């Protein structure tokens, strides 16, 4: 008998609200690695240590993100970042960071606590407006920005991608609630949840 690990929203995959073609797509990524990284941004050794593993220095500008290859790094606070990476590289990157960094730092694997959604489509900006008071208009929130904010009374890390879609990192414990919320908010545009497959 085989067992499989499923993403937090696997039972939502294929669900749709609204009639006609879905203009908004909520794509739940396959399981990926989430590492919470903390360290001193004034410490050049720390920044270079992270760069040697990840390929890019942790962004020190508030609310910005960077990526290198298949790893993305998001600013969470002045000394805190989130690394998103493929599940297959999670253990390797975590131990590499521990080897390369020294002094006062922390690396915590929070993969089991969150899930990554990508929302895209014509109505996506309007759908987000219903959910948060933050201004996600492209004048205020261009590609490469990320923000942690209240989202439908829960919290989310929202970032804008180069292709105009939005990435949402949400808590596993709120995933069911937020997926239901997003399907409801996207009903007028036609909204569909799709999944990235099971491991």
């Amino acid at each position: 008998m085989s067992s499989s690990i499923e993403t937090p929203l696997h039972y939502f995959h294929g669900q749709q609200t609204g009639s006609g073609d879905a203009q908004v797509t909520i794509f739940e990524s396959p399981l990926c690695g989430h590492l919470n990284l903390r360290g001193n941004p004034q410490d050049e050794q720390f920044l270079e240590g992270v760069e040697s593993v990840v390929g890019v220095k942790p962004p020190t500008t508030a609310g910005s993100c960077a990526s290198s290859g298949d790893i993305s790094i998001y600013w969470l606070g002045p000394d805190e970042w989130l690394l998103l990476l493929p599940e297959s590289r999670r253990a390797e990157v975590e131990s590499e960071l521990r080897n390369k960094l020294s002094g006062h730092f922390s690396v915590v694997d929070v993969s089991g606590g969150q899930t990554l959604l990508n929302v895209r489509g014509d109505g996506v900006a309007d759908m987000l407006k219903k959910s948060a008071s933050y201004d996600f208009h492209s004048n205020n929130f261009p590609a490469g920005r990320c923000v942690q904010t209240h989202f439908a009374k829960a919290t989310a890390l929202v970032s804008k991608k180069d292709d105009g879609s939005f990435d949402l990192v949400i808590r596993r414990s709120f995933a069911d609630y937020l997926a239901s919320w997003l399907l409801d908010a996207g009903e007028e545009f036609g909204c569909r949840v799709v999944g990235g497959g099971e491991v």
Partner: protein
Amino acid sequence: MLHIYCPFCREERDEEEFSYAGEAHIQRPLDPESLSDEEWGDYLFFRTNAKGIHHEMWYHIAGCRRYFNVTRDTLSYQILESYLISQQPGVRAKQTASAEQGEQPNAN
């Protein structure tokens, strides 16, 4: 709804993202053992309850999860500045006659 400028996120966010964390600039006594019960009680429980300019801590709980200080007018709710915990406020209340006489509790 207040709009509060977070000095770490470097932008104004809605009040709902923040949590009020009490009066700012209250220093823990260096040697608590040597305080009288009254002095310890003052430190723990008594606040200025200012009418007008007030320095207070806010916690950006839904954002960067950092504490910082805000100067707010408790009459108009106007927020005059946000600054780091390590800094001193740029806006201060005008000294009142009673404060100069030392009647205000916890006046440092």
